[in-house]
């Protein structure tokens, strides 16, 4: 019983990580049709921002475990990754709209460039971020059911990101313009919306969300120049299964893949579990090529 309860939690936790890494991609790939292979590198930028901030804070306060630093790192990671995303959009991607396959090659190159840049700045070996004390705790529900605080925190962070994204997209003028452009570019443009501005903004927002994911992932995973590559494939699978341009679909897909993967992995092995999930997704896409949620025809 306790095993199942803890597996349920593990599934939820995996879903939250998948969603966190996929949310930004749901904007750049899902809404803008940019096959953004550099998405993983924006995650990396978030992780290194957290690391750099902690180094600076440790230098001045002498206390690496300051919980404040980590809380400050979340918006800082967002800003750094969003700025990098903005630069990439205005310098590379804006020339490639309507040529999705070209964006694949261009962003792949951007990704390699960013990886080598990180290697030059921070060195090739992994670095470490010390988690604040309040995140290192374990919440024990029963004697056999222990929930790591970090996992609970990440689930909370995902909910916060979703909430903010909802408010932005549905309750702000900027968000309304963004939805307008994504739904009907020509019409929005003729009504006076600057589609160029909306494009750069949306891409920067997606990159910023990747940065937040990177910040959170420093708690549980490795921090190195190639860290983005560990998450990029899963992020694409989640967005594709969810259906392009469908944030609710992305949420559903992350939940399904996280849960199913955890169950399969527990029943078989990590490798077989992953293969089964991929096979399942491919079969599903054969049946419903548009994914879980289909954009309504216009």
């Amino acid at each position, binding site marked *: 019983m306790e*095993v199942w309860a*803890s597996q349920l939690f*593990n599934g939820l936790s*995996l879903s939250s*990580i998948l969603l966190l890494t996929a949310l930004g991609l749901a904007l750049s790939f899902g809404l803008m*049709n940019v*096959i953004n292979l550099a998405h993983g590198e924006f995650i990396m930028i978030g992780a290194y921002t957290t690391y750099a901030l902690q180094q600076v804070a440790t230098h001045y306060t002498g206390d690496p475990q300051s919980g404040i630093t980590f809380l400050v790192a979340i918006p800082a990671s967002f800003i750094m990754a969003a700025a990098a995303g903005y630069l990439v959009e205005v310098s590379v991607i804006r020339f490639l709209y*309507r040529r*999705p*396959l070209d964006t694949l090659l261009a962003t792949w190159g951007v*990704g*390699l460039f960013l*990886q*080598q840049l990180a*290697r030059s700045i921070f060195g090739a*070996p*992994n*670095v*470490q971020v*010390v988690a604040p004390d309040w995140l*290192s705790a*374990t919440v*024990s529900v029963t004697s056999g059911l*222990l929930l*790591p*605080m970090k996992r609970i925190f990440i689930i909370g962070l995902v909910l916060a990101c979703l909430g903010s994204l909802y408010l932005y997209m549905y309750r702000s003028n900027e968000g309304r313009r963004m939805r307008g452009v994504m739904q*009907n570019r*020509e*019409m929005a443009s003729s009504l006076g919306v600057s589609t160029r501005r909306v494009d750069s903004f949306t891409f920067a927002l997606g990159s910023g969300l990747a940065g937040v994911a990177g910040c959170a992932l420093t708690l*549980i*995973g*490795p*921090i*190195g120049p*190639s*860290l983005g*590559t*560990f998450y990029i*494939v899963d992020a*694409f*699978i989640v967005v*594709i299964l969810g259906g*392009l341009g469908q944030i609710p679909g992305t949420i559903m897909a992350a939940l399904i893949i996280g849960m199913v993967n*955890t169950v399969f*992995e*527990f029943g078989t*092995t*990590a*490798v*077989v579990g*992953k*293969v089964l999930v*991929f*096979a399942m*997704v*491919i079969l599903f*896409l054969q049946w419903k*090529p*548009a994914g879980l949620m289909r954009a309504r025809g*216009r």
Partner: protein
Amino acid sequence: MSVPYLSKALGSLTSNTLKLLAGLGLILAVACGSEAPAAPASAPQGSAAPAAAAVESAPAAEEPETIKVGILHSLSGTMSISETAVHDAELLAIDEINAAGGVMGKQLEVVIEDGASDWPTFAEKARKLLQEDQVAVVFGGWTSASRKAMLPVFEANDGLLFYPVQYEGLETSPNIFYTGATTNQQIVPAVEYLLNEGKTKFYLLGSDYVFPRTSNLIINKQLEAAGLEAVGEEYTPLGHTEYSTVISKIRAADPDIVFNTLNGDSNVAFFKQLRDAGISAEDLPTISVSVAEEEITGIGADNITDHLVAWNYFQTTDTPENAKFVQAFQAKYGENRVTDDPIEAGYFGVYLWKAAVEKAGSTDVAAVKEAAKGITFAAPGGMVTIHNENQHVSKTVRIGKVRGDGQIDEIWNSGAPVSPDPYLDSYEWASGLRELAQ
């Protein structure tokens, strides 16, 4: 172009793209599931990095005659995490040798190539070093996949390779000297040590490729001979970062030791998440064979404190040679740099080659190989001797416990150097392994 048409065209394009991407994902997963790639996953990411071919000329330019030697490690891509430091140690040894007058009075001229974490690149660069640069010897490689890619090149061109990393054994090449441990100098004695400590319930956890699978095959046979059986055996893809389910499985199997052959970045995720799950080294110790001082820096010492590791050398190993080596390494590369087993093996490999060349009186491959038999060197980790037949080296086995500051305290050693036995011929329970390897 009308809008509906555009969106339809985009729609069909993206749906094809989706299938392409999903297919790619499956291929990636399957590729990781099978044997070959021997490094943290997603190697292709690294492959396109510029292969910087730097030539560092030796200081003594007026000397008409120099000896060219090659260094071939991944300086870019995913494996540069580990290989850069070995490359540094080999350069240090070469600098020291040049400063002390070179080999047979000739300065060494280094040709550095970048394997870029890509196995075909290793083969190609090895061919370039041997055929174009005509180097006398190459120091290089890390993953078994890179070694296996270079092996036919060295055999076809009759070159000489010094390979500095512990590996899964079951191999001998007339053109390769193995300065890292083979299984009977690391894994087999580690299991023996654990059995003597009264451990009976082994859980085997590894990355899914040739080294962990071969190691666990050997461990299973060894346990069988002791009348035991592993309580669990689990492999995760290279680059796997989600260990909560694996940890649940370990908890359910209730082992008293986890034998960890995970490689690369997965170790960081595993140890962080093990600690988050409230499992300390006291509750459940692990022993790792691919986690050294360099990796501990990235894992975070507090996440792995009191866990065990098995190697032939630690930075704390107490020999006069090591004190000198650590000091020289940190003086050249920075106070915060650490040394570890493969770094040390890369370093003394250069000296072993020098000794063999001087004994042979030439850099001719056949003469050097003949002269290398039985050559000894006082390495930082203790005395090492090249084996007469299999070209591995005998070295002392050490088991250590990770300290809070990331250094390792030795808690056991084999007392004397252990002679290399790559096919485990001297172990009765290992009969049949030799056939398996062919």
